[in-house]
């Protein structure tokens, strides 16, 4: 039996990262309006593109590092790097969201790898990237591990999410870890 033929995974499509523009609002809605995607986010799904436009304008465009995950220049998700508050500018946290139809293809992992490289190149003094994933979100935990993040521990009752208090798995990627 030729294992390569039988078990070969479909190739991950080529993805690129770029800044958002206001004309991306419809693409943005493809994940931001989907409760399957927002399940582990603090915010509820958008129903009105006007709200999405406001979010792009007030939050995404001025953000220190926020990118669209694109296939053929069309956004299918987003990824952001947020520096820690106060004096700890060496530390930043990553968040990402992907339209449901694009799950399971290695896209988030690839976006993370591109982001890790870009973040350490572009953000001065950055030494620690971190990400937290809900204990009930094993898909996201696997994505982080595949991208090279290391699990550091489970932080119990760490965040409030839609009226519940959740346990979160903490991951980190240090500047000293090879990509």
């Amino acid at each position, binding site marked *: 039996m030729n294992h390569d033929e039988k078990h070969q995974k479909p190739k991950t499509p080529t993805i690129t990262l770029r800044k958002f523009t206001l004309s991306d609002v419809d693409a943005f809605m493809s994940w931001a309006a989907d409760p399957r995607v927002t399940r582990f986010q*603090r915010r509820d799904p958008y129903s009105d593109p006007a709200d999405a436009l406001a979010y792009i304008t007030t939050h995404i465009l001025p953000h220190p590092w926020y990118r669209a995950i694109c296939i053929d220049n069309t956004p299918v998700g987003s990824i952001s790097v947020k520096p820690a508050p106060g*004096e*700890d500018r*060496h*530390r930043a946290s990553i968040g990402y969201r992907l339209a449901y139809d694009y799950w399971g293809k290695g896209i988030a992992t690839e976006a993370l790898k591109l982001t890790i490289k870009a973040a350490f190149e572009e953000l001065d003094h950055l*030494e*620690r990237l*971190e990400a937290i994933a809900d204990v009930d979100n094993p898909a996201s935990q696997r994505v982080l591990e595949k991208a090279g993040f290391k699990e*550091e*521990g*489970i*932080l*119990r*009752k*760490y*965040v*409030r999410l839609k009226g519940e*208090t959740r346990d979160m798995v*903490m991951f*980190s990627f*240090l*500047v000293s870890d090879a990509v």
Partner: protein
Amino acid sequence: MDEQTTVLNRSRQPLTVTLREFELTDVDDYFVWASDDRVSPWWRWDIFTNKEDVLTFMEETVLPHPWMRAICLDGRPVGAISVTRRTAEHQCRAELGYVIASQYWGRGITTEAVKLVLGTIFGDMEGLERLEALVLVQNVGSQKVLEKAGFTKEGILKKYLIHKGKISDMVMYSFIPSEN
């Protein structure tokens, strides 16, 4: 009601550990640990060298703090303990911090102060479910305090905080009343 418990002094006579709010008149006692060069290395703040600066610090940071107490031994402040919510969105968690003058180290006083906080903070702070503490990996004394007080070690967060100009690994501890 004053929170209190009893520890023994060196000659095995009972002393009482209590917590109370700070007043500006505590500045002389505050200066003792704030200027202590055995204490300062473990804290992010720089050592204080004069009382005027301590007074300013008490006015600007200590007195307005949402939850900060003097750790008192037989009624006299020997240290400070605080519980701080660091994010507005996650009211479920708050960070514990404490400091005690070095001449009182090793006598179980800090552990008792932490236990007193555990007995009151979850009633005082609505919505609090997690009390956490971050300790330098090399601060074994502080790790023992938390472990004796019943905290759980959750992991080591690498290169987490800048401490005295150096990026440092921190041990994360937490106390969850429904679990610990």
